[in-house]
């Protein structure tokens, strides 16, 4: 075998292994999207290929809710006295079923939004992740600036505290935090969803490391212009830190959009506060197993925005998510 063909062969083998891996990695995404496009019958029988046949189907729930009632029958009898009641009923039912006919896609995604307040859940997700990131920055940036650019008694102790807090995983101490919030009557509020995450030792640490690289001259010049220290943080340091801030934003938003553990603990029952993962979990627990289509449609709606954002800005996302690797 020549060296070149040996090289070709090993290259081929590598691709075979990598493709097999890609197949396993992508399989759940394919199943999720494919199921969200199919009719209940196709899901049950495992037919229809990836996109489903998209044959029109009757939304049984809609048909049940609009089933002809006594007064409908009376009205029909008056309009068409020549027919028997059974024939009339048949015609009315057919009419309703006609009106309730939709395509599987419309049925699945329509039910995802109508069976549960999915829009509300998505909005809650945006509110919670947005407030967490905003508050994290309001707390972390001034502290990071003080720890990197100001000289004061106790600085090493404060920084030591930050390093110590880096060791504490917030999920691990969820129970005592939950007790504290419950004692203050804060469970089932937005505050409970946001408060534990407002302090990010990692955010302080990261921004401090970044600010260390900003030249002191920039700060001194701003002071000479008469800026207050706080104004320096927002008007001088913040603009220089946009790339680091963006990476941290991705890190924070992805983590909290996907978080299920904490919302599960502090939100009990109040649907108007559900975040997307809580909403999906309730949908899954509540369905009797026949609603896989709408369930997968809900999952798709929750998962896809982040995946699309990731595919559009892969570098930034990978940098952001692996931030904790840069310690």
């Amino acid at each position, binding site marked *: 075998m020549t060296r070149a063909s040996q090289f070709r062969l090993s290259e081929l083998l590598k691709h075979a292994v990598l493709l097999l891996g*890609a197949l396993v990695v992508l399989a*759940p995404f394919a199943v999720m999207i494919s199921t969200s496009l199919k009719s209940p019958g196709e899901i049950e029988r495992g037919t229809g290929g990836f996109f489903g046949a998209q044959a029109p189907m009757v939304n049984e729930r809609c048909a049940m809710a609009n089933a002809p009632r006594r007064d409908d029958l009376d009205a029909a009898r008056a309009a068409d006295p020549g027919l028997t009641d059974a024939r009339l009923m048949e015609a009315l039912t057919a009419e309703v079923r006609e009106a309730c006919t939709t395509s599987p896609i419309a049925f699945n995604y329509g039910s995802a939004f109508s069976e549960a307040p999915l829009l509300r859940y998505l909005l809650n997700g945006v509110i919670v992740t947005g407030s967490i990131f905003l508050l994290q920055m309001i707390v972390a940036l001034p502290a990071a600036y003080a720890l990197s650019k100001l000289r004061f008694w106790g600085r090493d102790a404060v920084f030591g505290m*930050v390093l110590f807090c880096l060791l504490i995983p917030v999920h691990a*101490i969820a129970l005592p935090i939950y007790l504290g919030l419950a004692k203050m009557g804060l469970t089932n509020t937005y505050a409970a969803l946001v408060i534990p995450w407002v302090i990010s030792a990692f955010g302080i640490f990261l921004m401090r490391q970044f600010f260390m690289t900003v030249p002191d001259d920039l700060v001194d010049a701003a002071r000479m212009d008469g800026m207050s220290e706080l104004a320096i943080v927002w008007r001088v340091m913040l603009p220089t830190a946009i790339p680091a801030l963006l990476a941290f934003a991705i890190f924070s938003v992805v983590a909290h959009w996907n978080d299920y553990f904490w919302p599960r603990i502090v939100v009990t029952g109040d649907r108007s506060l559900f975040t997307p993962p809580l909403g999906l979990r309730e949908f899954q627990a509540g369905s009797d197993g026949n609603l896989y289509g709408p369930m997968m449609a809900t999952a798709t709606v929750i998962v896809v925005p982040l995946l699309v954002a990731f595919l559009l800005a892969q570098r930034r996302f990978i940098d952001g998510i692996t931030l904790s690797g840069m310690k």
Partner: protein
Amino acid sequence: MTALAASVTAAPMPAAHANPELRQSRAAWAMTAPALALMLTILVAPVLLAFGLSFTDYSLGNPSFNWVGFDNYERIFTRSTYAKMLWATFVYVITVVPLSLGLGLGAALLIQSVGRGAAFYKAVYFLPVMATLLAMTIVWQLMLHPSIGVVNRTLEAICAQPALHGLLTLQAFGASPQATWLGRVCTEGLPVWLGDRDYALGIVCFIGIWQGFGFNMVLYLAGLTGVPRDLYAAAELDGARSAWERFRLVTWPALGPTTVFVVTITCIRAFQSFDTVEVLFSPGGGPGKSAYVMMFAIYEKGISQNLVGIGAAITVLFLVFVMILTLIQRRITERKVHYA
């Protein structure tokens, strides 16, 4: 301190502030105070509180509580429920950490060495890291559904193909149907997966690996760019002819700091696994409590059942594990990180 003061006073300051050092110190404290207060109340106080509560029989809503000494800890180490919890957590960590490290490293090495498609594979393998784990667990649950799941449908199709089936089960080579897993599955019926205690924890581990190895891959890809090229040439001169020798002598040692970090972060994440178990096995923690991992136990005991003392004791145990891990990592990193 004098040099410091000199450098501060050297810069001209607005006249209104007679003592710039004091002014800076005040500003600094005002700026760190919110962070410091929040660290103390949200992070440090709960750790102490968990420690204190672990010696009580407190439950939320009760006006009073009793000190029970080490009862909660004793229970954790004697009752079979908690033995199952510790075992499930141990098995999960000991399975997920090495496998997701190995797959992450393997993927990184392959991706780095292929000519084309590297960006594609990297993006694909990273997708599960971004995806909501809860949602993907629900998808895996559907895939593993005994009758309508794609996994059993595939197995069924394989079993129905005599040629393929014979090849894969080695029956074509004279093996008995009982000899292979696939052979048994085809003759004795398809697995029920999540309802079977032999598979339950394995599936939780599998989803953990599926979700996490792309993260390790990215860290290893970053680590690989830092391996000096000339080291390979030097190793080859020293007689390291095979790819394996070069990996063993150059790549693996150079990736040391990355590996230490990957092991620590994967361990901490593995300890914290919750979503998968909650979706698949709530309440109870799976058939025979086979997937009763620690975070799920904290949730179920401490919060659902309001047995705060036990929950707090598990929390303390958990924190001890995580702290030990991180301290080991810091020690190793301090010693090793400079040699590359």
